[in-house]
């Protein structure tokens, strides 16, 4: 699959601090891509380079195989972490304005905006001033502004910060939908658990450096610790637990660790063969958060800020 985005050795220095330190990664077309790392890791700096808000000192950035140029911003939809709108403008006019800045004609913009407003069931907001909207409502408008010009690359920086669960789900659904229409999406967040299940590929950034990159399930498989959790009815003979380290055990719920890799199907079969009724069974894969901390520690680095600090 072709890559929509390819970064090679990108460096960006602000005065004395290296915000982006030789970062390279690539992102396949049509994928949902997570750019993860703690606050201050350099994610926003990277995004600003990709969106041409700033320029990299060195390194190459290719979009669809072409070096970044002035036409690319029209093909990118960017929702910054710090987002705002002109308070005094009417919602409809505002969206048209932003869409036209992305290269749409007045007519195209109107059609697309009406389409999206109907989709979000907010058509009656057209003549409302932005300042009359609640924060959640403004976020919907913001999202429309990000995707209205049908960008092939959508970049969402901390998209769920300050978003209520309903809007968050709405946006997740729309993201899936947009992907199915061919868009590629970058999620940038420090809340790794929020994107674990959505992203296919990730890049982990710490202190401006790329510490880990790859397919999420592959990474998880590679980093798994042979942990299993199961819940059974009936007695399990102590002999069965031999060769496994029991980490937790209560009321028939067990968490066990194998010293070596074990096929989950085979383990489940031995469990069934042991004559107990299996209520639940899963292999515990490490969370991205754990993987991140582990990787950083392995590389002898420190994490700039604690993870999962709510905004």
């Amino acid at each position: 699959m072709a890559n929509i985005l390819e970064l090679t050795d990108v460096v960006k220095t602000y005065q004395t601090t290296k915000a982006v330190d030789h970062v390279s990664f690539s992102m396949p077309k049509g994928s949902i891509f997570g750019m993860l790392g703690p606050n201050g890791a350099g994610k926003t700096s990277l995004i600003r380079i990709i969106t041409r808000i700033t320029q990299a000192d060195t390194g190459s950035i290719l979009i669809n195989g072409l070096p970044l140029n002035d036409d690319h911003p029209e093909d990118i939809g960017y929702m910054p972490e710090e987002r705002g709108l002109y308070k005094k403008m009417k919602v409809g006019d505002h969206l048209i304005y932003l869409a036209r800045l992305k290269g749409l004609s007045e007519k195209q913009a109107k059609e697309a905006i009406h389409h999206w407003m109907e989709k979000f069931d907010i058509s009656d907001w057209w003549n409302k001033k932005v300042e009359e909207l609640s924060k959640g409502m403004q976020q919907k408008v913001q999202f429309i502004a990000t995707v209205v010009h049908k960008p092939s690359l959508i970049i969402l920086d901390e998209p769920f910060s300050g978003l209520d669960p309903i809007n968050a789900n709405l946006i997740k659904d729309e993201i899936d939908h947009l992907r199915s229409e061919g868009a590629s999406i970058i999620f940038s967040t420090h809340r790794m658990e929020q994107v674990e299940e959505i992203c296919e590929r990730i890049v982990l950034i710490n202190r401006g450096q790329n510490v880990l990159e790859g397919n999420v399930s592959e990474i998880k498989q590679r980093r798994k610790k042979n942990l299993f959790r199961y819940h059974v009815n009936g007695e399990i003979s102590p002999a069965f637990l031999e060769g496994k380290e029991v980490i937790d055990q209560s009321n028939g719920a067990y968490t066990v660790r194998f010293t070596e890799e074990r096929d989950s199907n085979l383990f489940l079969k031995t469990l069934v063969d042991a004559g107990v009724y299996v209520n639940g069974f899963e292999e515990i894969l490490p969370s991205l958060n754990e993987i991140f901390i582990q990787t950083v520690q392995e590389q002898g680095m420190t994490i700039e800020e604690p993870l999962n600090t709510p905004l």
Partner: protein
Amino acid sequence: MNKLWLIIRREYLSRVQKKSFILTTLLTPLAFLVFFIFVGFIMSYESDEANKIAIVDQDNMLKKAIKDDGNTFFSFPTAPLDTLKAQTLRGEYNGVLVIPPLSDIQARDHKLYYYSDDQLSLDVESAIESAVSTRIREYKIATMNLDPQLVESLRTSIEIDPEPIVEGGEDISSMRSAIGAGLGFIMGIMMYMGVFIYGMMIMRSVMEEKTNRIVEVMISSIKPFQLMMGKIIGVGAVGMTQFLVWIILIPMVSVLVNLVFGFDAQQMQTPGMAASQMDPDDMQGMVMMAMQELGSIDWWVIIPLFLLFFIGGYFLYASLFAAVGSAVGDDIGESQSLTLPISIPVLIAFYIMMVSVRTPHSTLAVWASIFPLFSPIVMPARLAFDVPWWQIALSLVLLAATVVFFVWLSGRIYRIGILMYGKKVTLKELGKWMFYKG
């Protein structure tokens, strides 16, 4: 280019369509007139308490005939001075004025005595002085048996008429410098106000965009420089619109006010003076001359030049205000300390402008009108005084170069500033931003 146009359009329309804009634009000329009427009223305000003054004219020089002045009423009671003093104490008169006989018909000074327990107000004092002086003059003329017409002919009014030194040069009248100064002053004030009002408008709007956090959305679509220029041009167009409306409205409203209130602007500005001391024929002559002078001014040269300087000065200072706005965010206090270095040259230019309308060809005026930080305000003030072409050309070239430089410089600061949050900005820091890479 297309996007720049979109930004200009938004910046323009979002302001022009505001109710507050429409109101200020329409009401300012009215407010101006109300202000001037009010000032005129205050200036022409005289003591409103009736002053009853008893005059004891010991030599009957006034012949019991003296004009009451406004609220000051004169009377010539026959009672002796002591009685009058007692009456004054009882409040029947405000005071008693004693006019002693002239010791010498040729005396140049004459002392009157005023008995009262309150001080004479300045107005009343000068009214009495002028009335008595006129009457004594008439008395002297009559006593000396002089021909009043001959005496009147002793006064000669002088007018200096500038003539061209080369044959066929432009013959101008003495009104020229007064009119030039007035015109220059108006243009200078317009420049000064334009720079401040619209410069501040830009600064506030940049600060708002930054605090609003819309700016990052915007510059993911357009370049910071485009956003800045769009704003400067858009707000500039707003300013032009406003000025245009005022230029049309102010004369209209003043004519209207004139018609409705029968209000004479000329009289208002110099209360009492113009009407009482100037011969109506002279007045008419002066108005005619002024009209002629206004007609002879090369409007087709001055107005385009004024516009050029206006645009240059506006871009120069507006871009600086935009840079400051981008650096400070929502901190008004901080913005004030950073606008100070911008305001100082504007203020200096303003004062030089005021001097320049009086001495348009002084060394100070000439060099200030060439120095690009001052020229947008000083040069328009000199335009009505036949400024040599080389000075205008040099001034414009320097201004254009400076505008390009300052806009570029502000653009460099702006693009860093709008993305910089939560940091106190110093001038030194702004200097560093200029050299940052993209």
